[in-house]
């Protein structure tokens, strides 16, 4: 009767199949469907074999299936390593293993694979829903492990669930201790391959007409921010991301040389700082978002500030990433820069968009000062019939800015930013496009601000002599509500952003859910090296080191396990006998001088008969006591008077 030889019975097989299905089902969302179909096939095959309708496949067919599985993975992904291919392979192997389950040990291997499948599922997503799903899944697998590995007859399923639930409940405190205290690494052991099919929505490092309005479709969260004090007003919530200085007449892109570091003395300080923490969703890019103007002295680890004031991280953000910043909203950079250092922010292809260039050259000649040109351009947007819309008509490929300014006049923020920046450059004013997010929704439950992909925005910065780089948002000239109310408030009727943005109570639900997600991100998913050390310091550990954390972990785990062992030890003590048993035992002791002790297996009636025969003089008393004892025994909770009567009778017995 050992696991290697014990044959598979239907109950154990059923438990195992249920676990495989529970563990593999979430992968339907992440992986191609064919491994799941294969698993379904082998499950049906295995069930048919269990019922005797069909043979399990022989070694040749199994080998062919395994080869086909490998080939399938290779065809699907072009590799058999990496997250997606690896997970698919795991599902395929589990499906194939099912066709050679002959002993209980094979079933146990499948259950261990099921546990592993649950964990691989987290590599694709760690939302609250995924976590909630995994709790019953782990419970089922643990119950199955209990049932399958038990050599005795399987328990009723309700009982098995309660036993495994007890085990899991006992394991949870230990898990929490380990989760808080297990030292987190600062980086991966080996390169983490980016998920192949992760079509991440988010800002890219270039902008052409339509690239931002596409993001409007996405309600996905870009990041969440928690402010130490009052959040800045809506007009200051410009979260800067990539800065685009290259223009080819249609498309704006990053100027790579701007990656060099900012000179600290080119920043002047003014006003009050804003302190905040951002939890950035993975966007697989190097840049971080920040309000104007981050304090270069207090940057997150492995992050630099570039000459154009982007925050650049050495590694792409592939996991939820938390960082703290201090920003000086009234700060100005490069106020003292020379015009010639800004020459790259004046370039544009002269042969494209000629009408726009001509228009602006007229302004520049008459204007006394560059700020005047800026005003004129904004005035153009404000006074001419320009419209803010998410669905403008496609623009001319060769001269898109001309087409927009003189003909279409309908556009989204990228159209306005692009046209405005080009106009400034044509007028000889250094200008560039900035991508980022504008706005953010303050969550009434969580005190945090949620910034979504649909808040993506593009605006301009112009360099003015004596003032440095100044932010100009041309979209605000056309649709001032965009800045104050967000996209949904600024778009014309009929271009709304879906259900959630309209209904009041649904909005409340959304706020609550978002607050929950924020807490989840901050306390569970974003619990990395820095957060761990901060929490441990707050809990009273001075200067947390890996050694200290491990020692504390071992210490606390020992205490917890000792408490469990103590509790279990109490349970293994003999149960306290009830008063009836004590009285009856006293009776047996009293009469043992007559007929010897009661033999094992001798019932009270037989014993009474034996005693009465041996000493007829007390037969009446002996039988009365036995009757009284047996009568009381049949009450689940014997009444006090029965016990009292028995006590009196036993006390009165004289041998």
């Amino acid at each position, binding site marked *: 009767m050992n696991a290697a030889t014990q044959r598979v019975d239907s109950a154990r097989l059923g438990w195992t199949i249920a676990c495989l299905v529970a563990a593999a089902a979430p992968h339907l969302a992440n992986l191609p469907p064919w491994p799941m179909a294969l698993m379904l096939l082998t499950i049906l095959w295995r069930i048919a074999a269990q019922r005797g309708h069909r043979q399990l496949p022989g070694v040749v067919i199994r080998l062919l299936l395994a080869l086909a599985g490998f080939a399938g993975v290779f065809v699907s992904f072009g590799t058999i390593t990496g997250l997606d291919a690896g997970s698919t392979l795991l599902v395929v192997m589990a499906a194939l293993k099912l066709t050679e389950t002959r002993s209980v040990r094979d079933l146990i291997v499948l259950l*261990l694979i099921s546990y592993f499948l649950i964990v691989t599922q987290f590599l694709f997503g760690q939302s609250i829903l995924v976590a909630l799903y995994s709790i019953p899944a782990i419970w089922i697998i643990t119950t199955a492990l209990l049932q399958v590995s038990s050599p005795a007859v399987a328990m009723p399923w309700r009982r098995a669930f309660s*036993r495994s639930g007890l085990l899991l409940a006992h*394991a949870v405190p230990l898990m929490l201790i380990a989760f808080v205290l297990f030292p987190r690494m600062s980086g991966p*052991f080996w390169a983490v391959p980016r998920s192949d099919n992760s079509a991440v929505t988010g800002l890219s490092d270039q902008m052409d007409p339509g690239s931002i309005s596409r993001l409007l479709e996405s309600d996905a969260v870009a990041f969440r921010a928690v402010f130490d004090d009052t959040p800045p007003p809506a007009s200051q919530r410009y979260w800067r991301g990539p800065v685009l200085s290259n223009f080819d007449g249609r498309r704006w892109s990053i100027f790579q040389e701007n990656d060099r570091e900012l000179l600290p003395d080119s920043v002047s300080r003014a006003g009050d700082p804003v302190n905040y923490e951002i939890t950035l969703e993975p966007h697989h890019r190097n840049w971080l978002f920040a309000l104007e103007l981050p304090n270069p002295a207090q940057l997150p680890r492995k992050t630099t500030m570039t000459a154009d004031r982007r925050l650049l991280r050495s590694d792409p953000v592939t996991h939820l990433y938390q960082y703290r910043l201090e920003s000086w909203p009234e700060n100005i950079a490069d106020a003292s820069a020379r015009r010639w250092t800004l020459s790259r922010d004046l370039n544009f292809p002269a042969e494209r968009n000629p009408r726009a260039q001509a228009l602006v050259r007229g302004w520049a000649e008459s204007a006394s000062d560059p700020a005047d040109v800026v005003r004129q351009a904004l005035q153009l947007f404000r006074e001419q019939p320009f419209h803010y819309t998410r669905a403008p008509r496609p623009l001319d490929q060769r001269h898109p800015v001309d087409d927009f300014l003189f003909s279409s006049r309908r556009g989204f923020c990228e159209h306005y930013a692009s046209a405005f920046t080009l106009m400034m450059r044509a007028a000889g004013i250094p200008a560039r496009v900035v991508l980022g997010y504008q706005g953010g929704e303050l969550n009434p439950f969580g005190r945090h601000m949620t910034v979504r992909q649909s808040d993506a925005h593009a605006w301009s910065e112009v360099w003015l002599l004596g003032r440095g780089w100044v932010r100009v948002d041309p979209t605000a000239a056309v649709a001032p509500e965009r800045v104050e109310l967000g996209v949904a408030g600024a778009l014309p009727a009929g271009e709304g952003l879906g259900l959630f943005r309209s209904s009041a109570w649904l909005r409340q639900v959304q706020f609550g859910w978002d607050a929950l997600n924020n807490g989840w991100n901050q306390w569970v998913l974003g619990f990395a090296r820095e957060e761990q050390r901060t929490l441990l310091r707050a809990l009273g550990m001075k200067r947390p080191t890996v050694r200290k954390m491990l020692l504390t972990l071992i210490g606390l785990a020992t205490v917890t396990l000792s408490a469990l062992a103590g509790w279990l030890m109490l349970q293994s003590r003999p*149960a306290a006998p009830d008063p009836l048993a004590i009285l009856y035992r006293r009776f047996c002791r009293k009469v043992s001088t007559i007929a010897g002790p009661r033999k094992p297996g001798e019932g009270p009636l037989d014993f009474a008969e034996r005693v009465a025969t041996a000493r007829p003089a007390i037969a009446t008393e002996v039988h009365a006591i036995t009757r009284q004892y047996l009568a009381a025994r049949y009450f689940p909770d014997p009444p006090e008077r029965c016990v009292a009567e028995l006590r009196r009778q036993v006390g009165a017995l004289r041998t």
Partner: protein
Amino acid sequence: MVRSRIRAWARRRQGPDGEQLRLASRRIYILPNAQGIAFGFLVFGMLMGALNYNNSLGLAVTFLMASLALVAMHHCHRNLSGLSIRFAGDTPAFVGQKARFKVTLINDSAAPRFGLTLRRGAYVTESVHLEPGEHVTLSLEVEANARGRLPIDRFGVFTTFPLGLFHCWAWIHPQWQSVAYPKPAPPGLEPPPQQTDTGGANDNTRGDADFAGLRGYRPGDSPRHIAWKAYARGQELLVKQYSGTDVTSHWLDFEALDQMGLEARLSQLTRWVIDANSEGHAWGLRLPGQTLAPDLGPAHRDRCLKALALL
């Protein structure tokens, strides 16, 4: 080699056990089994993956699994800790067969115990669950290799419950004994003829085998004495009793078989005892220094076989 040394160490450490014992914690051993080691590798793989991907949920599940194993270890240990074990009798066997030792497992604690199994050498009993207050009797087989007293020098009680990740066991070194009866000689040699007890032989009024009434059937009664007619009428199994002072019996005499060796004599006597019992004859047994008066029935048979075994 190592194994036998460890066992010898455990025996020295624990000392011999009595008729009844309660398993104390200090004599319960626990180690991960193959499944537990596989589980350990699984958790290690999960830990590496979760750390590498800096995956919080992955880490949480990894820690949950590791904790689960540790908790299961304590639960597994508790399954045995405080279990009472009692000798509940034995079934002797002839040499070459297997004697049985009945062992009662008693759970007098307030919590259930699961998956308890007894093992002696390669012989493993079924495994049982015990609710609070329950007890169950299992039997262990012991090869009867040589005539005489048959001790069960050691057996184990083990469990892998709850998750099958740990093997938790205790060694018991009882002083219990059964008996190995001599191996019966092959049938063939005729037993000595029946003798009639002369004590009441003259009372001929009732003849050789007078019917004297019926009594209830007891296991071991000869089938030819069963009152089949009464049984066919729907009555219970009854046995016809014959009375009379003319007790006819075989006298099986050790000294009469003087042309054989000791073991052969005992084997032959054993054969005759078995045959006489199954045929319903009465027999008496004369051994050096010991005489068992003529009687019949299984109890008498066992007495005689035991006397033969221990000679």
